[in-house]
């Protein structure tokens, strides 16, 4: 590895002078994706056998949790005893859910008539982990229309047009809201400091150093706390409740420490449960938080909400490869938007650094496995260099500590100085491109059920661009909060039912699926095999 680093150093000046390789043409992009992107391997997916979207193709890991039994027998649950009776229930305490609660309140629902439930702590989510930025077309050189074209082209034209319109047109307003609640965006000379992301044609990436998600979410949560809206932590929803007409009517939540369940009745329900990174699709490591196990997707699907674009998975081009202890953690795209370029073992740049993520990831995989130009770590994992010292050459000394302090700290903890040495990277599972299909108001196919954030589907098509997930979270979090509030005012308290769970289980049987799988899975299991195989389970 050290020898290869020397070659990277030796070629740096020449590369800086020549500039990075040119972007690929549409044909070149298609070709490299077809050959090298993990999404383009049909054997890693299958057709769903049951449910409203039966016939849709999804990764095996997703099919496995859809084609599974519920965690409990509906006959064991007493629906006549209601523990919480509210107007708006929000399931999931990341950015989208927290924003939804705030805007439901702004739309006239009292704080005590809203309830947020969340599996881990309020804020344990991918929302806080976003590093690079959030897109918004607010410079005179830019426009929402150009943003639209970048988004839909990056998504391979599969995105729902009305959702992209909402995304790009609400974006500047969301930045304005963040200003109102005191998010500290990076600014210079009275303007935002805006940069490119992969697949953007204008510089519109707003950032708060490389802690963008944390800086935004912490202000949003602080505002939420000032409003006094109640939260139940360590209480995942394990099934949605419907009324007899099939309208959303609340949820069963589960205390993961005491195993006790509670019944929530709600006039409107918001799903903001995030994605599936911890399912380790195709055995990839992930950047995602501990609870990213697609629980919301499962329970919404059983309740009759259809899915869209779930065949498509985002692998972030640059996950950490070395040191192995932090394998798969995120090396933000902002490193590339500030000037770092991926280079191979001989110090050669092999791809334009800011292609859309799927294309960039495919190029890294090709370099490592077809061209055999990757660098192998002592533990046998391959990666390519991301030449981080270029950032300081281009932007000036001190840039990394100033604008990329999270990245500096992460590697510094392992005695790697990214201002001096390049870092080793390889694609890592990052984002669920699809999800529960919504309309521009965030409404799903189930009346009274709304979805926002990573669990929603249709916004990003087959590939999301950097900085558009933070935007999705707050654009659609706000929209579903307002939609749910309005819906709740027109809706009456309902008689609760779990008949859809009984029916779904019958469908499994009819489809010939015999399995002891249960879902939602709630948390991954990382215990050593030897421990799991000798476990008796008395205290689990």
């Amino acid at each position: 590895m050290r020898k290869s680093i020397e070659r990277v150093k030796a070629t740096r000046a020449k590369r800086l002078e020549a500039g990075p390789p040119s972007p690929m043409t549409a044909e070149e992009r298609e070709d490299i994706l077809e050959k090298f992107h993990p999404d383009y391997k049909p054997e890693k997916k299958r057709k769903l056998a049951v449910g409203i979207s039966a016939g849709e193709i999804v990764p095996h890991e997703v099919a496995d949790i859809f084609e599974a039994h519920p965690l409990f027998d509906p006959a064991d649950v007493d629906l006549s005893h209601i523990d919480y009776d509210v107007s708006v229930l929000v399931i999931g305490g990341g950015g989208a859910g927290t924003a939804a609660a705030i805007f439901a309140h702004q739309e006239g629902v009292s704080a005590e008539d809203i309830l947020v439930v969340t599996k881990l702590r309020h804020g344990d989510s991918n929302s806080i982990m976003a590093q690079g930025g959030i897109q918004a077309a607010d410079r005179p050189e830019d426009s929402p229309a150009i943003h639209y074209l970048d988004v839909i082209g990056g998504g391979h034209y599969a995105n729902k047009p009305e959702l992209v319109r909402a995304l790009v047109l609400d974006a500047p307003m969301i930045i304005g809201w963040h200003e109102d609640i005191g998010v500290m965006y990076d600014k210079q000379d009275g303007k935002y400091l805006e940069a490119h992301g992969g697949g953007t044609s204008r510089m519109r990436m707003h950032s708060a150093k490389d802690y963008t998600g944390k800086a935004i979410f912490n202000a949003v949560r602080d505002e939420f706390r000032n409003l006094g809206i109640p939260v139940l932590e360590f209480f995942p929803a394990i099934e949605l409740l419907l009324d007899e007409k099939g309208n959303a009517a609340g949820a069963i939540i589960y205390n993961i420490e005491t195993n006790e369940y509670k019944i929530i009745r709600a006039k409107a329900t918001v799903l903001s449960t995030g994605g599936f990174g911890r399912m380790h699709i195709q055995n990839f490591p992930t950047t995602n938080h501990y609870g990213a196990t697609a629980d919301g997707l499962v329970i919404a699907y059983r309740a009759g909400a259809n899915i869209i674009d779930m065949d498509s998975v985002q692998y972030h081009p640059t996950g950490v490869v070395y040191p192995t202890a932090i394998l798969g953690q995120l090396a933000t795209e902002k490193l590339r938007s500030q000037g770092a370029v991926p280079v191979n073992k001989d110090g050669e740049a092999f791809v334009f650094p800011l292609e859309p993520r799927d294309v960039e990831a495919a190029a890294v995989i090709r370099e490592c496995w077809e061209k055999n130009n990757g660098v192998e770590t002592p533990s046998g994992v391959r990666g390519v260099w991301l030449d981080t010292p270029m950032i300081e050459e281009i932007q000036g000394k001190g840039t990394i500590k100033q604008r990329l302090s999270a990245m500096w700290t992460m590697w510094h903890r392992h005695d790697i100085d990214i201002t001096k040495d390049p870092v080793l990277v390889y694609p890592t599972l990052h984002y669920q491109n699809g999800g529960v299909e919504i309309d521009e108001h965030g409404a799903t196919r189930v009346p009274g059920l709304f979805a926002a954030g990573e669990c929603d589907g249709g916004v990003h098509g087959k590939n999301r661009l950097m900085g558009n997930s933070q935007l999705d979270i707050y654009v659609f979090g706000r929209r579903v909060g307002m939609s749910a509030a309005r819906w709740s005012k027109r809706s009456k308290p309902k008689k609760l039912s779990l008949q859809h769970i009984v029916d779904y289980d019958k469908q499994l049987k009819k489809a010939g699926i015999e399995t002891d799988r249960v879902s939602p899975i709630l948390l991954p299991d990382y215990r050593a095999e030897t421990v799991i195989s000798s476990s008796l389970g008395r205290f689990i």
Partner: protein
Amino acid sequence: MGKGNMNEQENAMIRIHVMGKTYQVPAGLTIMDAMEYSGYRFIRGAGCRSGFCGACSTIYRREEDYRLQFALACQEMAEDGMYLVQLPFTPAPRSKYNLEEIDPSENVLLQYYPEIARCVSCNTCTKACPQDIEVMDYVQAALRGDIARTAALSFDCIQCGLCTMRCPADIKHYHMAQMARRIYGRYLSPVPNHLEERLCEIEEGVYDNELGKLMAMNKEELGIAYAARIREEAK
């Protein structure tokens, strides 16, 4: 389920002591991974697993060393002979305020968090911080009414709460600093004009027509428009 393409080679084994029990684990794991390898399945004490959320505060001692050490379990490497204790996140009281209505003058932080005046400059907070933030310095800045400095110094705070748990003066550092950052963002860092202008244009419907045209395009037409984009070069 595996964690992905780990392909760990056979490593030397080390001993860790988890709340008094000793386990053998491979070297080269983070504290969190080492505890999971030992058979612990976290409910509390694990969050983002990337050093951004503050869920996995850990205190430990080394054998033959009296000093307490502080770390994030997902970021710090397990070492032979570590005595580990996980600290589930402990909420601290925070003051409610209305950002729109407060007076963002230099006394505001002291008004909402008067206990910062009890800071004895012992620097325990700074020593406990896994983010290497100069915590005591920002408390002192807050005392002086320097909101900008409090906000800047505390920017990387992940609100794990270790500072607050260790403080002999009951200061709620991370809540106070959050308030400082919001006041700075809201009142001391002006909104760029170009945002205001764009908001007016959107309000007036300036982009509705162009967006309508794009929405009506089929895949082929969009492909042509997409290919014709000219990428802005950084100045």
